[in-house]
């Protein structure tokens, strides 16, 4: 286990505000304590590495995982082959390209925008049912069910199965994150079992979609057309699992972090209520200020590379701390200030390079709609506890609960 600043970052006690730790880290842009990962915390270095073709995302290129608390899971034990998130070109390109066919341009240019009405209806329904305005848990009652409902609809996963995959998804998300109290073997077994069960569940669903195709993404991926050969069943399972989990674990945090930030900046919240067009720049600034994915723990160099005067040996594990790069004063003026009017906001919140967030267009739209509607309909909202209790996870960071109160939930 790592000591010092890295264990501080992983320490749950610092979850509510890791930014002072990142600031300390940036004094050593490439941090390495001898046995742990190489940790990159400054904007330009991270940006450069995200576009560096000498860096692999494939865990099979990782030489030694010793000392990296985030690289505990042995991939060969995994129940499903790695998703394109953890593959390099050309496999990555092929799978991502095929996945993109039913999702975005050029083949499906209006898929995301066409979901606008659905998204608005779900948001409206959830806000209508918030119940007692004096006791709202924005995570359980809104920020979680919203993206889950949406990703289910997009993929064609029955919403009523949510309680089943919720458990698997939680376990898998948690597997990204070290839990010092858990027995590693037990954790690994649980992760493996969850992937296996999720895989079996999706396999059944895909079989069903092959027989009765709909216009959902699973049906279209299973049908597979275009210049690439179609996905193998195992590839399809990995891709579906990736979309299902990444499609909601992150957006929950984006919305919750967003509302938390707005409640801490009531003037901005009030502006959003009056100027809904503020939503787009506001979400971009949010992705800079409180990115839902704080760091990328899965890159490894194929050769010795030099970053900021430090040689990182081939096969080393690396962390790219996106959230720290986003607050790098060498890149952003007043980086610790939340400023939706910021014009220069080329953040790292959705990554960059070939692995930049696949679901970004959907995540952006979901967050914009969610925050605009909450701002419009909650009258005089306020935080009941600040900071709120956070989830265990340091990588996918966000509040576990966001308890708020308001005077009244305005009608739609």
């Amino acid at each position, binding site marked *: 286990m790592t000591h010092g600043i890295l264990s501080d970052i992983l320490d749950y006690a610092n979850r509510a505000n890791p930014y002072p730790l990142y600031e300390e880290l940036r004094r050593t842009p490439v941090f390495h304590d001898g046995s742990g990962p190489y940790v990159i915390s400054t904007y330009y270095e991270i940006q450069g590495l995200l576009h560096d073709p000498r860096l692999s995302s494939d865990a099979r290129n990782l030489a030694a995982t010793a000392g990296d608390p985030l690289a505990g899971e042995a991939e060969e034990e995994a129940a499903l082959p790695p998703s394109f998130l953890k593959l390099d070109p050309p496999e990555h*390109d092929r799978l991502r390209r095929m996945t993109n066919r039913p999702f975005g341009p*050029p083949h499906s240019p209006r898929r995301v925008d066409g979901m606008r009405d659905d998204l608005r209806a779900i948001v409206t329904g959830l806000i209508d049912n918030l119940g007692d305005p004096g006791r709202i848990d924005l995570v359980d009652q809104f920020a979680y069910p919203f993206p889950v409902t949406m990703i289910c609809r997009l993929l064609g996963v029955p919403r009523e199965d949510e309680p089943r995959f919720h458990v698997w998804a939680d376990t898998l998300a948690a597997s990204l994150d070290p839990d010092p109290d858990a027995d590693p073997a037990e954790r690994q077994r649980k992760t493996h079992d969850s992937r296996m069960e999720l895989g079996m569940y999706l396999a059944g669903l895909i079989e069903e979609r092959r027989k009765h195709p709909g216009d959902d993404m699973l049906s279209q991926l299973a049908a597979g057309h275009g210049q690439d050969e179609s996905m193998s069943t195992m590839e399809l399972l990995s891709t579906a699992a990736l979309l299902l989990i990444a499609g909601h674990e992150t957006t929950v945090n984006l919305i919750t972090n967003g509302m938390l930030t707005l409640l801490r900046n009531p003037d901005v919240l009030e502006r959003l209520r009056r100027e809904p067009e503020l939503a787009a720049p506001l979400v971009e600034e949010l992705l800079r200020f409180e990115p839902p994915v704080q760091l990328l723990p899965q890159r490894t160099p194929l050769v010795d590379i030099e970053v900021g005067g430090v040689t990182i040996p081939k096969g080393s594990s690396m962390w790219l701390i996106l959230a720290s790069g986003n607050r790098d004063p060498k890149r952003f003026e007043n980086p610790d200030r939340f400023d939706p009017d910021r014009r220069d906001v080329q953040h790292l919140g959705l990554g960059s390079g070939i692995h930049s967030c696949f679901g970004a267009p959907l995540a952006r739209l979901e967050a914009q709609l969610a925050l605009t509607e909450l701002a419009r309909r909650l009258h005089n909202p306020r935080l009941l506890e600040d900071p709120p209790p956070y989830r265990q996870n340091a990588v996918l960071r966000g509040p576990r609960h966001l308890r708020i109160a308001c005077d009244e939930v305005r009608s739609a």
Partner: protein
Amino acid sequence: MHEVTLDHLKREGRIVVVGASLAGLRAAETIRDKGFTGSLTMIGDEPYEPYDRPPLSKGVLLGKSTAERTALPRRRAIDAEWRLGTAATGLDMAARRVRLADGDEVPYDRLLIATGVRARPWPNAAEGELDGVFVLRTRDDGAALARRLDAGPRRVLVIGAGFTGSEIASACRERGVQVTVAERGDAPLVGALGGVIGAVAAELQRENGVDLRTGVMVTALEGDSTGRVRAAHLSDGTTLECDVVVVSLGAQRNTEWLAGSGLGAGPRGIACDAGCRAFDIRGIVTDDIYVAGDVARSPHPLFGYQFLSLEHWGNAVSQAETAAHNMLSVSTDRRPHIWVPAFWSSQFGVNIKSVGVPSMGSEIMIAQGSLAERRFTGVYGYQGRVIGAVTFDNARWLQFYQQQIETTAPFPVPFPTVDRRPDGHRPVPADFPDPSVPTHGPTITLSGYSPADRRMTFTPAGH
């Protein structure tokens, strides 16, 4: 004429921008951003406010956008006096005045020249005036050509397979219009990217149904009795029936209006220092005249201090900002324009991007992906260093290769990359045409002695 102090210049000086272009507009915006409150005059020979050119050969020809909707977005208000539809016709450097076509003269304390380039016309003027013969450079050109494509021509002939010519051919095919491309070189894009990549581009065109003819020249255009173009004669002896011809033979720099002014301006552009200050014909740098965009030629330290003139969108923006900054700065605060050349193109569904100066490269290696898949990164080497890179549908890696160029990284690329295929381990000759033999733009021979007798004739390649 007294020299104004910088402070006085900023408060109540007179700045004139000739060229209501992308570079002109971005310079004007930067000038105001720097706190200039004096008078700002924008002079343009076209009647339009600054517009964007890249869509003209892409979305506009496809009918997805119209030429009228290409106005450039404004970053801020510039509070300028616009003299549109009025060409600048002369420059009096001593009196600091710009002469206009309408006889007016505009005095300046600082002048920015951003007059850009124009399409090289078809050398035979009478043939060039046939109905159905187009060039593509301006908004009016784009609108006229788009209208003609809307009408559903039987066959379009594109003369020249550079980037613009290839994009036009791509738009025609996407609209289902029959198109022939005649290229004097051995392949499309060969002048910019070399023969290895040119071969890929040729394959791409043929697969998409383009009738691509290489190694040939168009020697004459023929019209019918009503003055409409109906056929083209090629140097291989064939005759091609066509009802639309697009002449895409590169560009000429708009510097004629400066003839006799004493400024170092000529057919290759206006020479300037790295800070965008124009040279006069004696090779002495001026203090009050700046240049930016396609018309500028400036020395670049990364490329052996060669004077580069770049017809690149990003260069126009960056050079304009640098020029604007420098014209309002004391000498020690001035910045060099050291933009790394970069451009993009979109044709036949492929996104092509490049950085550096590929045409300086003698060798190329495919560092990622493969030519066969038409998804790759090609890295160009020159005397043991990386000098340029091109990507086909692989642009996200380009930033890395730009860094390699900026840090004069060694070539051949010594390290492995994700997605390195077996054929990418060895560099091969990049196969650029011999620069002493012109491939782009027809060779023109002048004959006759007195100006009235002078005639231009074609000299076909290898004939």
